[in-house]
């Protein structure tokens, strides 16, 4: 099995062990789903409390995607967990390492009912093989 496979599952495991929020940056880590299709990588992101596409910033490189989204109102947790701290979050933020090299310029995204869907085409070199 490839190194990427091992790394992917290690990343998935680490993901579960990591808190889903960052109190210092006041941001929540959104739930994401990465679908590896034949021609493209499709990333969907759950963004409750995000009002419109204008509140979302997407940055794509050839092997990564960064999502930042502003919530329409701050989410507050009071007297929660061991620290009993007052926590407030205003933003979703997530950086994703993509499983394959992509063509950032061909990316497209839609945002509907609080779900963001980003489709990024893979960089693929195709050769036609002549049968002798």
């Amino acid at each position, binding site marked *: 099995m490839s190194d990427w496979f091992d790394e992917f599952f290690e990343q998935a495991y680490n993901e579960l062990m990591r808190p*889903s929020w960052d109190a210092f940056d006041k941001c*929540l880590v*959104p*739930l994401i*789903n990465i679908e590896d299709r034949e021609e493209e990588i499709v990333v969907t992101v*759950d963004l*409750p*409390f995000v009002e419109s596409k204008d509140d979302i910033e997407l940055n794509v490189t050839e092997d990564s995607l960064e999502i930042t989204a502003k919530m329409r109102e701050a989410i507050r947790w009071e007297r929660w967990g061991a620290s009993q701290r007052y926590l407030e979050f205003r933003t979703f933020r997530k950086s994703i390492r993509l499983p394959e090299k992509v063509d950032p310029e061909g990316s497209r995204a839609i945002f509907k009912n609080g*779900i963001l869907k980003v489709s990024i085409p893979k960089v693929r070199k195709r050769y036609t093989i002549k049968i002798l």
Partner: protein
Amino acid sequence: MPKEIKIVEKEGIKVDSPVVIEGFPDVGLVGTIAASHIVDQLGLNEIAYIESSVFPPVMVLHKGILTEPARIFGNEKILLVTSEIAIPPYVIYDLAKALADWFKKKGAKLVISLTGIPVQERMEIENPMVFGVGNGDDALSIIKRNNIETMEEGFIAGIYALLLKECLKRNIPAIAILAQSFLNYPDPGAAASAISSLNKILNMNIDVKPLLERADEIRVKARDLMRQTQGAMGAMKKPLETEIPLMYH
């Protein structure tokens, strides 16, 4: 070897041919979200909890009070089983058997599981459709009588699939209500559709408007349970639910 699972009842619970509603964490957390809303709307009290040495060593604090994560709420006519943590896949066989035994002991007349069925195009669906699965003729006739579309072909996986089977062995009619849902995201819209079908079956009027109004809040609060559940769903062969079985007649 069977895992030890105990259902610990609070003193003085009285039931009379109750209907059981099951809403464990699963696809889109449809069952858990629906269960939590039903407890609120019907004002059900905690009447029992599920204890097992093979559950994760977790307890939950609510307003400073220590509670078990897997609990049963109810009144004389309704019992509702739910959990605030993902059920580990290695427990579900024994949990389904233990629950079905307990339902039999309580004289349950019908068991209804509320859950989601993943659909790829969920983002495009405004009102999720609901499908019913029954464990026998009685259960199927309830589904059809209430104009709920039956699922004719396909795989079902998870605790509700085993509950259908274990209830059948004990002659308890059981139904699974499957609402079209996101697989990996908490889906209050799908939970509302599942509750609407439950309303039809039980001739109740649980208002889903407050659930839909709080949808964003629920989606944020349920993220961690969804992350736990994602891990469990892979081991439960959940992706099979989107596959087509070999058909024969």
